[in-house]
């Protein structure tokens, strides 16, 4: 590409022509707009919602705990996150098998943020042809004003995005205060700029190139496809041979198909492809071409659906199947994992313990004829309320336990280390034996945990 736009976008893009998707309205675009508002609405609003006196969703990395509404997750609960990621991946497979690249077209952050950046571009620079004209025009104060305003809007929006992102990890009200006073910490500043910068570059400049060159899902999604997967298709049998014609003319007698070759489907495409060439990996299934074609078909008085959501079987006239082994397997796996996740989450241990033998001495023989081992019991209270804990030990004959008791107070979300001494009469045991430790809260006997350690005594 030559001309002023290339200068503005820098040398990296010399060889690539910018895509100017034409604005389009229609039923699928309405869904996409709703998706943008809902998803970005959640993203930007969630950190501001408060729950029980603190931020409802806060991934408190400095304190190593995640708050998600009433739930507090600890590093020990990490497998829940892994589980959730597996569920997300499987859900992606399931929806891909069912309806193709739904995620790409409607929910992918890349698509969603690119859409908002396109809106801002249109707001300032006008529609597609106005944008193209502006790009070709020589630099003038007017052009500078438009391009500058667009950049300002983009940068402001990107910075807000970066700020919101950091607001998930640092209390957002505090962060806002710090930003107002220019007193953010170095890492907070860095991540705001990093995430904001990534948004700006990805949604403002790289756009469809991310899908084409950088996205792994775009490459392997076809593995989930079969002949019953919904894809965006051009009905070539009905449309070809394409060609211009006068409105109301008997085009069929001239051997023409329904496609009037208006190229609207190409103009609205955010990846700049021609859907009439068949399914292409660049297609993110945003359905803009369906809306565009439907509008044209309405205008010329032909039936809608020349470009439509259909399956390969549908195009071939074979019966469509939604229930088929592939979707059933994905759905079953998904249901099992989701159910397991819910059960595991509701049965999650709210208290946990860890017991470590004191490494300084194997055992101590006391003058009163008892053999003593020293342990360090760590009590973890993952609840949002403080609890009084009792520590028990069992598994040895005539055992006595000694710690700074009778109960140990552990605050909400706290870890308390308690030195515990266990004694047995000399000669009662010889060598090493397992001793079973337990903790339980005084107020809620169901909150309990157990741990095992070795008790060592002189042999013989």
């Amino acid at each position, binding site marked *: *590409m030559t001309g002023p736009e290339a200068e503005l976008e820098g040398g*990296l*893009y*010399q*060889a*690539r*022509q910018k*895509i100017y998707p034409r604005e389009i309205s229609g039923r699928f675009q309405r869904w996409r707009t709703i998706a943008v508002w809902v998803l970005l609405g959640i993203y930007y609003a969630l950190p501001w919602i408060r729950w029980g006196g603190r931020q409802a969703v806060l991934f408190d*990395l*400095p304190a*190593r705990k995640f708050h998600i509404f009433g739930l507090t997750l600890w*590093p020990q609960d*990490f497998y829940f*996150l892994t589980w959730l990621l597996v569920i997300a991946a499987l859900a992606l497979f399931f929806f891909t098998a069912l309806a193709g690249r739904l995620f790409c077209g409607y929910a992918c952050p890349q698509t969603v943020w690119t859409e908002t950046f396109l809106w801002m571009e249109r707001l300032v620079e006008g529609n*597609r*042809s106005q944008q*193209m004209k502006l790009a070709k025009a020589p630099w003038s104060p007017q052009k500078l004003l438009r391009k500058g305003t667009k950049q300002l809007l983009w940068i402001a929006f990107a910075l807000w995005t970066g700020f919101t992102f950091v607001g998930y990890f640092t209390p957002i009200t505090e962060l806002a205060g710090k930003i107002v006073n220019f007193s953010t*910490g170095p*890492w907070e500043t*860095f*991540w705001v700029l990093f995430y904001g910068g990534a948004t700006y570059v990805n949604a403002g400049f*790289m756009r469809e*190139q*991310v899908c*084409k*060159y*950088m996205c*792994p899902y775009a490459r392997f999604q076809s593995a989930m496809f079969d002949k019953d997967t919904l894809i965006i298709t051009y009905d070539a049998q009905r449309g070809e041979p394409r060609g211009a014609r006068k409105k109301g003319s008997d085009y069929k007698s001239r051997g023409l198909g329904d496609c009037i070759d*208006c*190229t*609207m489907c*190409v*103009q609205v495409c955010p990846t*700049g492809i*021609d859907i009439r060439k068949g399914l292409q990996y660049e297609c993110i299934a945003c359905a803009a071409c369906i809306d565009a074609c439907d509008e*044209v078909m309405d*205008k010329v008085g032909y039936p809608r659906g020349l470009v439509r959501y259909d399956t390969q079987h549908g195009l071939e006239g074979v019966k469509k199947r939604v229930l088929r082994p592939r979707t059933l397997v994905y759905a079953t796996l998904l249901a099992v994992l989701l159910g397991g996740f819910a059960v595991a989450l509701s049965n999650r241990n709210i208290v946990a313990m860890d017991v470590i033998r004191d490494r300084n001495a194997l055992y101590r023989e006391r003058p009163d004829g008892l053999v003593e081992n020293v342990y360090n019991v760590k009590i973890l209270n993952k609840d949002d309320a403080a609890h009084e804990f009792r520590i028990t030990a069992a598994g040895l004959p005539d055992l006595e336990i000694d710690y700074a008791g009778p109960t140990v107070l552990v605050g909400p979300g706290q870890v308390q280390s308690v030195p515990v001494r266990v004694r047995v009469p000399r000669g009662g045991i010889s060598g090493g034996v397992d001793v079973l430790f337990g903790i339980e809260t005084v107020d809620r006997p169901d909150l309990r945990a157990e741990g095992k350690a070795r008790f060592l005594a002189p042999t013989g």
Partner: protein
Amino acid sequence: MTTPGEEYSGKLRWPRLMQDVAIVAWPSFLVASVATMVCFAFIDPLLIGHDDYPPPAFSTRMSGYAVGFFFFWLISALSSLLTLYLARTAHPEPPESGLDQHETRSFE
């Protein structure tokens, strides 16, 4: 209805260099994100350091996470870069290699 000739005449592809940068930087970014999550779920950055030398490696957890993330990104980017280099510089298999002919002959 529409002005004809508004389709794209220029290239819609990125230049090769941009593609290379993208396919090295992006997958390694994704992998580094996952690696950072897994690593720091198990390791508290404040506990990284020398047992005997009191100043720990990181003064705050946030700096530990950040340094960890960029460390993982660098490592995985290096791996991506090597893979890309090897893939790009591999000599293409000649259309009729000697081995194939030999094998074919032995089956005759």
